[in-house]
């Protein structure tokens, strides 16, 4: 089938000899299995940080914003820095899921789910800061245009701060809907694979009863495409509007027409750095190295290089224009000689080193494909992008037009605690997500398996591009390939004469009595009083008809099937002659053992 063709020069995106079933197993494993110790350790640390931050927030709200380090000159500091930082991080998810979908990038399939989760969790953190900063968060609904008791004093739609409210809430809700719609088939997979009744209940609610009808899939794909088309300009608009918060003001350093594109590039830059940070850990912890490969990491590093390059150019332009304008106030803007040598020199150089110099190492292919180095660079970029926002806000404000009011900002433990708290909250959410959600869009990965899977690429390399991609089929005559079925006429229906009459299907007990006894002696008999029968159809290769026959022989449990060896397979083949070699080929005993241990 040449429809699965992909240029051989492209590296595989799914490593190992994966079948569709393997993908379900690998993606379902973290959800269906138990958490390991390292998960609990990281979760506990995050939870403590979160609770500490919660305490700081309660202290802030109950006492007042005065507990922060703000002063008359610097009225915005860590709060808005953190806000912009978190919103920026929230940009990579939609970029991966939407923009890369429009560009038909197959590598997005393995990373989009987690990147979108990260987006949502990051935007939640971002949203906290303006609300806390209001001082009276219980009046947060005042930012909404609702008729009120003050005559009809409406909110001010001329203000970028209000545009922000609309942009961020639209972004959050659209991202959530996009994420959830993509999750439905994967929740359904978990729902149908789990053996625990509680999980089954939860995941059937979460999956909205997804059944996978062809019409549903058709709509699903269309909806995904349209949502991607809507989310792409949306994600650009969000950080554009965040940059308006600054760009529409008259503060030197803020009043800059370059801000919208520069902020968007910076947001994607920092977002991808955070995706790298999370995924490099997650692929290891959740054993997903076959899906999130070095190639994925390299692709993301290339995006980091591109957006980092845009940010670098923006920095240079800002620096140049600040100098070229000849305006003395501009010499104290965050990218200027004054900033580089002034009291905030360390913040200036942190920005330059972390965002401009260190990412340049990714031009080297070896480093770009080095996982440890990528992780370090990603952490450095995360720090650097925090400093970028800190510089824009605090450094620009610290030296305003009136020399007498120049000031420095000193964070209090509440500032620091709140920030650490949001990091904790973010990781709490992400860790819970990693244990309860299918972290890879398995349905989408299955669609690229035949074109980009390592084993299928090998198949094409050996047998040519037109070789059949049909995976091993369970039964004769389809094993010889689908085309063989039509020509081959010496085929016997399993429904002997009148198809639905299973009695006619029955085993010839008299003839095979000895064999059946010998078989049951080896694998044990079923006692209905003490044992319960298992659903043998769960074994790959056992259909309703085969199950019926096994029941007639007295085989009802996985335990019995799991004791089968070659001798028993041969006996079974002699008794039930229709599918010779089938049981052995599918390794019923091995499958049954796994199923038995799950129960």
């Amino acid at each position: 089938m040449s429809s699965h063709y992909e240029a051989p020069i492209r590296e595989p995106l799914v490593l190992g000899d994966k079948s569709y079933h393997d993908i379900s197993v690998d993606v379902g494993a973290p959800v269906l299995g138990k958490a390991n110790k390292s998960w609990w350790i990281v979760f506990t640390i995050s939870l403590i940080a979160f609770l500490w931050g919660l305490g700081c927030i309660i202290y802030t709200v109950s006492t007042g914003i005065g507990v922060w380090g703000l002063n008359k000159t610097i009225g915005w500091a860590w709060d808005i820095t953190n806000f912009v930082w978190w919103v920026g991080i929230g940009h990579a998810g939609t970029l991966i899921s939407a923009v890369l979908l429009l560009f038909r990038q197959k590598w997005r399939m393995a990373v989009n789910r987690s990147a979108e989760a990260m987006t949502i969790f990051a935007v939640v953190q971002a949203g906290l800061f303006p609300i806390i900063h209001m001082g009276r968060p219980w009046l947060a609904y005042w930012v909404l245009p609702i008729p009120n008791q003050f005559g009809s004093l409406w909110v001010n739609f001329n203000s970028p701060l209000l545009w922000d409210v609309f942009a961020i809430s639209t972004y959050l809700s659209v991202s959530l809907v996009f994420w959830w719609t993509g999750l439905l088939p994967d929740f359904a997979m978990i729902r149908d694979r789990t053996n625990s009744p509680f999980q089954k209940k939860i995941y059937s609610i979460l999956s909205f009863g997804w059944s996978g009808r062809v019409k549903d899939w058709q709509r699903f794909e269309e909806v995904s495409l349209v949502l991607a088309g809507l989310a792409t300009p949306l994600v650009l608009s969000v950080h554009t509007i965040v940059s308006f918060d600054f760009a529409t003001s008259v503060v030197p350093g803020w009043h800059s027409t370059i801000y919208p594109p520069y902020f968007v590039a910076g947001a994607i830059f920092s977002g991808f750095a955070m995706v790298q940070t999370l995924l490099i850990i997650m692929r290891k912890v959740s054993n997903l190295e076959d899906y999130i490969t070095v190639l994925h990491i390299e692709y993301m590093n290339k995006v980091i290089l591109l957006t980092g390059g845009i940010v670098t150019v923006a920095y240079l332009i800002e620096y140049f224009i600040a100098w070229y304008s000849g305006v003395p106030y501009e010499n104290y803007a965050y990218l200027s000689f004054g900033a580089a040598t002034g009291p905030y020199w360390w913040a200036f150089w942190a920005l330059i080193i972390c965002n401009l110099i260190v990412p340049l190492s990714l031009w080297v292919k070896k480093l770009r494909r080095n996982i440890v180095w990528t992780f370090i660079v990603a952490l450095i970029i995360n720090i650097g992008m925090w400093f970028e926002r800190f510089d824009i806000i605090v450094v620009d404000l610290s030296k305003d037009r009136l020399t007498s009011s120049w000031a420095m900002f000193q964070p209090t433990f509440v500032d620091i605690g709140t920030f650490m708290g949001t990091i904790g909250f973010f990781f709490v959410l992400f860790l819970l997500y990693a244990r309860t959600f299918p972290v890879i869009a398995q349905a989408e990965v299955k669609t690229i398996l035949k074109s980009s899977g390592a084993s299928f690429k090998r198949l094409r390399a050996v047998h040519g591009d037109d070789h059949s991609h049909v995976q091993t089929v369970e039964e004769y005559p389809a094993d010889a390939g689908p085309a063989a079925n039509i020509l081959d006429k010496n085929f016997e229906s399993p429904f002997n004469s009148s198809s639905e009459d299973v009695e006619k299907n029955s085993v010839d007990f008299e003839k095979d009595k000895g064999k059946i006894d010998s078989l049951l002696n080896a694998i044990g008999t079923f006692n209905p009083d003490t044992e319960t029968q298992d659903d043998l159809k769960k074994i790959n290769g056992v259909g309703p008809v085969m199950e019926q026959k096994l029941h007639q022989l007295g085989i009802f449990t996985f335990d019995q099937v799991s004791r089968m060896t070659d001798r028993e397979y041969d006996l079974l083949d002699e008794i039930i002659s229709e599918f010779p070699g089938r049981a052995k080929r599918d390794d019923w005993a091995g499958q049954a053992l796994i199923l038995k241990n799950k129960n």
Partner: protein
Amino acid sequence: MASKKIHAIYTDDDLLMQAVKQTRAANYHISEVFTPFPVHGLDHAVGLAATRIAITSFLYGLVGLSFAVWMMNYIMIEDWPQNIGGKPSFTFYQNMPAFIPIMFELTVFFAAHLMVITFYMRSKLWPFKKAENPDLRTTDDHFLMEVEADNHDVEILTKFLYDTGASEISLIENEQDH
């Protein structure tokens, strides 16, 4: 009316595609196909009409845009015009540049959410909805094709489906009418 259907299970998407084409060519009616992932071109092969959900999204977007224009005009121009930062509030047209972000966001908000709600309603997806895939493995790695068997000889149809590469075939008799 009792309706008879045959469920044929396939283990491969290429095989399913071929089976769907062969079944349709043999003039059997495929009433439903359940797959674990979107099989490219399957909707066309089964003979489904193209979905119109993108059109609804466009219309919802227009609704959102109109709503934003109406809201801005009512709040900022008619109800309580104010001089804020010297931005002219005499007419909607003059003040509109400041409203572009809101108009854009509301367009996207309406288009995205109402389209997804439409999708959920049309495909009957909501919390507490019971899943209707007849075999649990169809969300994993199996593909199920449902063929109408009412007016056909079941045995011939079964053999035909077996020849198309089905690995399991079962006859389903439905008592309730649809």
